């Protein structure tokens, strides 16, 4: 049996029913939309129909998803499931951090945003020592340095306000 406290009696992991149910609902909705979202072409062989492979996918999702749901141990939703769902939603917080970072980079520029984002997230994670905050800044400058990784990220809008030579230097490298 697993050591995971969310594992209930070794039979069912908390949150499994919720996931399986959600998956089947999604699959059924996609099957229902098959006629609307795909096309059936006349005088085209069955296997070459544009609808054929999406149908294989969504019908497979629905059938296997439903069988998986059926084979799960029957159990009512418990407080373990709610606890697990809360953990899932906590992950959404970090996804939002990521999306805010994505949204700010084209405006404020890659390096300045990363210089703020890395220590801020480090702080949020509970690291309060100056050592860790400095390490996060160094990580942002050294490891994620745009010119080192050769990443193609457009310069920030704020760089437009910089004087001539400095502006092109920043757009190119930061």
């Amino acid at each position: 049996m697993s050591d995971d406290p969310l594992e209930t009696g070794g039979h069912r992991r908390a949150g499994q029913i919720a996931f399986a149910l959600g998956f089947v609902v999604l699959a059924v909705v996609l099957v229902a939309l098959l006629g609307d979202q795909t096309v059936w072409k006349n005088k085209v062989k069955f296997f070459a129909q544009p609808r054929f492979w999406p149908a294989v996918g969504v019908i497979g999702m629905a059938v296997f998803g439903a069988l998986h749901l059926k084979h799960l141990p029957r159990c009512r939703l418990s407080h373990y499931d709610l606890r697990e769902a809360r953990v899932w939603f906590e992950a959404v917080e970090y996804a939002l951090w990521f999306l805010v970072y994505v949204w700010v980079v084209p405006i404020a520029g890659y390096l300045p945003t990363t210089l703020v984002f890395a220590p801020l997230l480090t702080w949020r994670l509970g690291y309060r020592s100056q050592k860790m905050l400095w390490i996060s800044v160094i990580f942002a400058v050294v490891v994620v340095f745009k010119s080192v990784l050769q990443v193609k990220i457009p310069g920030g809008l704020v760089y437009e306000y910089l004087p001539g030579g400095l502006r092109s230097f920043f757009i190119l490298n930061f």
Partner: protein
Amino acid sequence: MDLIFSSLDILARWDVVLALLVGSVGGVLIGAIPGVGPAVAIAILLPATFSMDPIVGLTVLLGIYGSSMYGGSIPAILINTPGTAVNALTTYDGYPMTTRGEARRAIALAYSSSFFGGIFSVVCLILFAPVLAKIAPMFGSREIFLAALLGIILVVTAHHRQTLIAAALASFGIWLNTIGLEPVKYTKRYTFDQSWLSGGVNLIVVVLGLFALSQAFILLQGEDEKVRLTKLRGSFFQGFRELARHPRVAGVSATFGVIMGMIPGVGEFTAQFMSYTYARKTSKRPEDFGHGSSEGLIAAETANNAVPAAAMAPLLALGIPGEALTAMMLSVFYVHNVIPGPGLFQNRMDFVVALYISLLILNVLVLVFLLMATNQLIKVVKIPNRFLGMCVLVLSFVGVYSLRNSATDCALAAGFGVLGFVLKRLNLPIVPIILGMVLGGIMEVKLRAGMARVKTPFDFIDRPIAMILFIMIVLVLILHFLRVWRDYKQRKAKQWSTSHASISFATTMYRRRNSLLKARGRKVRGKRSRYYPRSTDKN
């Protein structure tokens, strides 16, 4: 000979040499950090390799893939935490050796076994290359379709006790691949009239979300572990001497690794468990297994390092990836218009041989690096998990955004990241989604092309290789259903014995209670007969 010279010519470039160094050292570092692993690293680095030459990009990725398992054995042996998932079996015998003060011996054995497994599989691959080159052109559309179908079935059935959800997730992957404009008639499929969906869902975005971002979320939500490292003193060369004392275990384990690596969807885990079971069954001291057995450590490490090179065989010869990492590498080939498959063996054999030789050099480089730098390298284990999560999150952004400078891609990747996080929390497989996406695309194209030339479905399997593949598919399915039936019967038998045992237990308890009551009754009556003599006695 000309072929080898032209292959060496490809490799004798400063950027390829640099890629070899970066890949091998980077892979070891990434493997040594528990919680990152080669899948995360490859997902993050994948977009960066698009701007490189195919040989350079692939060498970096291959280096990370091949050398991460060397690095993964370090935390597995020293702190009982596998650096990569495939090093889990190393903890069984590696860590007990550390607890009895033999950490250096364990690490030396792990290095030498990994090196032997890696070199053995590359040599096998080089020896097989002419055979593969002859067989590969015999694969037409139908054969490739059937091989891809076999691959997807093997991937699904390899997830024992999770087959249904693995099949559902593989179907999800197939559906994801169909989103956007259909390749022949250019009709829209599941775009919901959204222009950003017309181009389809990018494989790299899905890979980055499912592997890298989800792992970042896991790390960010976890807790930092306090690590106490054992100091290692002395030379690591003694491992080779000890390995030479177990040639049978090493040879058989490496062979298992090569065979399992070539079969799509089977991979390191099966190879390791088969080797480990074999080593234990044939050992003179099976009781040592799990308590610091050198044979157990050799079996686990040799088998897992023999897989990466072997896994390249179906990818290069047929264009069919066997697992997630080779599926990611396939996208690098596609980006550079190098299409893996029979044509690659016919037209670019020097490229294929150059890849094999680079794998050989990689193993040597990794070993040299490890023999020199292990004492410094083990310090990476101390990096706090959540801080690592922050680093992976930022690097994932670099990976996704540099693809197309699209914020939509980032949002999609975040969505897949949450999905991957949920799947990992529930212990559900992620790999079927990726293989469904990759193999689904291959199957759609090949089925159309194959069916265009046949009149009835039976014509589809009238060629020898197609027939062999079809028989293999049927056999795999029969074996799978037999295993399911056996499991079902065992479960039923267990349920029956449990319920029967409880009935017997209740009956025994009832009889025991009755006999106790009877005994107590006799005792009480006996006492009473002493204190209250019978009325007849009074007279």
